């Protein structure tokens, strides 16, 4: 600034110059003053009120100060000399309490009254404090100004536990700082994904994993119930699920609210922020507002970049050369050392929007750009943000990217490479010894030779030279080589799980085990899914594969399940549900029948039907009534029949030797035992069992997935049967002598099917695909195989056999059954 010294000696409020009073000595207020001075240094006599007792500093650098990477002196923007040299009167440590528009004065806490010709409100935001019990305790701090940082540093000096509530930008920077300062840090975040406003699920997952590896505990989906007190100081945080986390300090970083109280009290128009026009003028022409406290064209900002544009427009107008502010596109970076993360624009996808995703699991990279109408509209980058500013530039300028569309995801260097913008051309230009597959060390020459030797599909290449057979990150390169070498003669390989991946079901299942993948976002990252969060085909499949691979460890992902499995009932064409309680082996008793009859009457079920699976189906139950229906059925000892699931459905039996004159064994008893062993197990598809007491086969065991036909000398075990559109009779698997052996083989066969079949493949098509011999080998080649498989099945069953109805009846996931609210327009309210 080159303003002459003499301005400092002016008598405020007098003379020819207009008096400009600024409320808020923060980033926007001071920047606005700088911009005005740069245009017309003599125009105003200026006074700035600041609530904080210090000069203006760079608020965003409080994070490095907390982390110990910077000192306060390093982050001062405007020194005391600056105010003096520019003749600005700084009244710090004295907040303005009132604006009197009638007399055009402001009144400060000290009682000082200051007249203005023009007033600028730049009060920033207030941190939001969640109103839980204990939120006002000593030791609960926010993260907004230097005093907050000092409080955190004082706590960190004593060591111990810190809890940060809020896993957004601010919260994570606070957590990082406290972690570096030696505290044990737990981050509590309400949403399932960290920084969910800036990151998609995939990037949020990578961030969480990285922070956990640095020793932070990250609890997502965690809702704070109260802050626990001990001896008048904070002692911990209690979650709604009952967990309690010890804390010596609690940082609330759940969001900010524009500081509008002063403006509102003065009668200015205020919605979420102080309403301003394109020149930052409020509803009173003498009053301007700028920064986080304003609402411009419906938007309130929480980042600094928009402030610079606002301040430019404000200064243009205040010096009589109005330009106008048109709103800002923002981008986010996280200031945590060692973590590269960038997000900008709209990444919600939408119609006509196309996602381009690139993942490199080995280097921990996830990149996603969103293109719509030939323009880049959003970008999320994790692990490699070098191209962030290039994407942001394309985004802000709204440039047509159709020419570089295919190369866009590879970044600026690649996309602007002219002829190389075609990825095939880029791959063609690679030398023969360039490495294509890092995992298996396969060069381009080898891949090309393999293709020329007759491998005409991705799968053939994978199996013959191993390129892209492990992590799959070079799939794109191999596909390019196929295209270059064969032109249109490429053959498509075996069915992939869905269009989100180039891997088949078998590959995915194998890699989940080999690489110990334990969460859906992890599978998608490691196996280079081409979509950010999968689709309705792969999500349920992955959920099942993980559940099967890691029993007791993997937490079922409800939102990846088809409605019936989420609601634990069968949806009907009118949107109501049918409810089928389990009747073991088709047996029932007066108590159960009475309970069912009562439910039918109490909830006005329009129909009850005896199913082909030997139980009763109650139709027409509304989703709101389901928990109550289940509670009533539970009370009579009945549990879910899983008639809705890709799971064990029912075990159908005949009456057998107990009553029937032809019966050879106790088929009913065995059926009950089989159902008790297998109920609750999740499967690739539905699974039905039946037991007939003799070869007359009244229970139709030979069209079931597993059928037992009793004979005098023991039990014939049949597999792979199916009713339905394409009837398939079972194949005879083996014959055993005892009930125990029949049970063991049943458990082993079921487990083999669970571990090997593709999701949504029933036993019949599975056996047709792999062959009965394959199944027999799997079960009998190794004399131990049956025992091992059965043991794995029984282990998994430990975690599966808890009645989902009981949990819902007890109130779990109640929101799935309840409406949000009901709208009753006046005319309809009685």
């Amino acid at each position, binding site marked *: 600034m080159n303003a002459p010294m003499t301005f400092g000696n002016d008598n405020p409020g007098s003379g020819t110059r207009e008096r400009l009073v600024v409320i808020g000595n923060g980033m926007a207020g001071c920047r606005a003053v700088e911009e005005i001075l740069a245009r017309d240094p003599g125009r105003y006599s200026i006074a700035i009120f600041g609530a904080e007792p210090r000069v203006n500093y760079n608020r965003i650098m409080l994070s490095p100060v907390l982390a110990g990477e910077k000192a306060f002196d390093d982050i001062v923007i405007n020194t005391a000399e600056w105010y003096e040299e520019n003749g600005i009167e700084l009244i710090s440590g004295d907040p303005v309490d009132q604006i009197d528009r009638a007399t055009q004065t402001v009144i400060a806490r000290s009682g000082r009254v200051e007249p203005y010709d023009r007033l600028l409100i730049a009060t920033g935001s207030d941190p939001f404090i969640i109103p839980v019990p204990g939120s006002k305790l000593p030791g609960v701090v926010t993260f907004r100004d230097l005093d907050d940082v000092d409080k955190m540093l004082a706590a960190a000096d004593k060591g111990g536990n810190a809890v940060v509530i809020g896993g957004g930008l601010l919260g994570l920077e606070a957590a990082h700082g406290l972690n570096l300062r030696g505290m044990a840090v737990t981050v509590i975040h309400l949403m399932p994904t960290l920084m969910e406003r800036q990151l*998609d699920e995939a990037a949020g997952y990578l961030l969480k994993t990285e922070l956990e590896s640095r020793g932070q505990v990250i609890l997502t*989906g965690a809702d704070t119930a109260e802050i626990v007190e001990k001896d008048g100081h904070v002692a911990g945080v209690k979650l709604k699920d009952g967990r309690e986390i010890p804390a010596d300090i609690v940082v609330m970083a759940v969001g900010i609210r524009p500081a509008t109280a002063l403006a509102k009290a003065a009668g200015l128009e205020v919605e979420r922020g102080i309403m301003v026009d394109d020149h930052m003028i409020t509803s009173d022409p003498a009053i301007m507002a700028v920064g986080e406290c304003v609402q411009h064209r419906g938007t309130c900002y929480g980042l600094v970049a928009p402030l610079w544009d606002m301040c430019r427009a404000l200064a243009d107008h205040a010096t009589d050369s109005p330009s106008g502010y048109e709103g800002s596109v923002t981008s986010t970076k996280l200031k945590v050392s060692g973590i590269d993360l960038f997000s900008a624009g709209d990444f*919600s996808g939408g*119609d006509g929007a196309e996602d381009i995703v690139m993942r490199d699991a080995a280097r921990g990279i996830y990149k996603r750009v969103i293109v719509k109408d030939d323009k880049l509209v959003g970008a999320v980058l994790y692990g490699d943000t070098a191209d962030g500013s290039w994407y942001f530039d394309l985004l802000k300028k709204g440039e047509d990217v159709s020419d570089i569309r295919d190369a866009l995801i590879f970044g600026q260097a690649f996309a602007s490479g002219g002829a190389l913008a075609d990825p095939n051309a880029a791959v063609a230009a690679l030398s023969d010894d360039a490495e294509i597959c890092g995992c298996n060390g396969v060069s381009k020459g080898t891949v090309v030779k393999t293709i020329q030797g007759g491998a005409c599909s991705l799968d053939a290449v994978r199996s013959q030279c191993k390129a892209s057979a492990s992590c799959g990150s070079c799939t794109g390169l191999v596909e390019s080589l196929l295209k270059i070498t064969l032109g249109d003669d490429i053959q498509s390989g075996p069915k992939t799980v869905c269009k989100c991946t180039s891997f088949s079901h078998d590959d995915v299942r194998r890699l989940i085990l080999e690489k110990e993948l334990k969460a859906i976002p992890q599978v998608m990252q490691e196996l280079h899914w081409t979509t950010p969060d999968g689709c309705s085909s792969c999500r349920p499949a992955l959920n099942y594969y993980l559940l099967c691979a890691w029993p007791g460890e993997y937490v079922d992902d409800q939102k990846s*399940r088809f*409605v019936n499995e989420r609601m634990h009932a069968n949806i009907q064409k009118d949107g109501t549900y049918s409810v089928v309680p389990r009747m073991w082996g088709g047996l029932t008793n007066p108590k159960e029948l009475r309970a069912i009859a009562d439910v039918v009457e109490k909830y006005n079920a329009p129909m009850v039907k005896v199913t082909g699976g030997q139980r009763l189906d109650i139709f027409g139950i509304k989703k709101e009534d389901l928990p109550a229906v289940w509670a009533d059925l539970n009370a009579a000892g009945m549990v879910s029949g899983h008639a809705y699931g890709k799971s064990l459905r029912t075990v159908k039996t005949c009456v057998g030797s107990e009553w029937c004159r032809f019966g050879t064994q106790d088929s009913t008893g065995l059926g009950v035992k089989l159902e008790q062993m297998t109920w609750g197990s999740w499967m690739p598809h539905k699974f039905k069992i039946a037991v007939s007491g003799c070869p007359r086969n009244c229970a139709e065991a030979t069209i079931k997935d597993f059928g037992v036909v009793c004979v005098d000398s023991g039990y014939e075990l049949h597999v792979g049967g199916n009713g339905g559109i394409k009837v398939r009779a079972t194949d005879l698997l083996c014959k055993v002598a005892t009930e125990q052996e029949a049970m063991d083989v049943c458990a082993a066969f079921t487990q083999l099917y669970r571990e090997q079949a593709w999701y949504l493949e029933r036993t019949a098509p599975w056996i047709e695909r792999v062959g009965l011999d394959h199944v027999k080998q799997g079960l009998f080649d190794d004399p131990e195989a049956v025992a091992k498989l059965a043991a794995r099945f029984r282990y998994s069953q430990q975690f599966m056999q808890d009645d989902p109805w009981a949990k819902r009846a007890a109130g779990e996931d109640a929101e799935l059954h309840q*409406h*949000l609210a009901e*709208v009753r327009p006046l005319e309809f309210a009685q």
Partner: protein
Amino acid sequence: MIGDWLDIGPTDQIAPGNARTLPVRGGEEIAVFHTMDNQFYALVNKCPHKQGPLSQGIVHGNVVTCPLHNWNISLKTGEALGDDEGCVPTIPLKVDAGRIYLLREAVVAKRAAVAKAA
């Protein structure tokens, strides 16, 4: 301005990847969706195919797959995607300070249309 928007409660009532319903007395039930990307949308809770309850479908990207016959419906426009044809009305929605608002006019317009038809 606020008066034109109907406050239907805080955003955390709907977990990401889920939807919840809002019956309208004398009108058509509305389904409010929360996507994995943290966007919110509202549609009439009726699939354009055979009136399946879209609120019960699997949400991926900003598409919901109808639970009855797997049509994919765009949450942004209400249109059926792919080869299927049809469209379900959308209700303008905004999120402000952690609360969800629906355009009152659109919530009520549904009711008027139904009343007329009846």
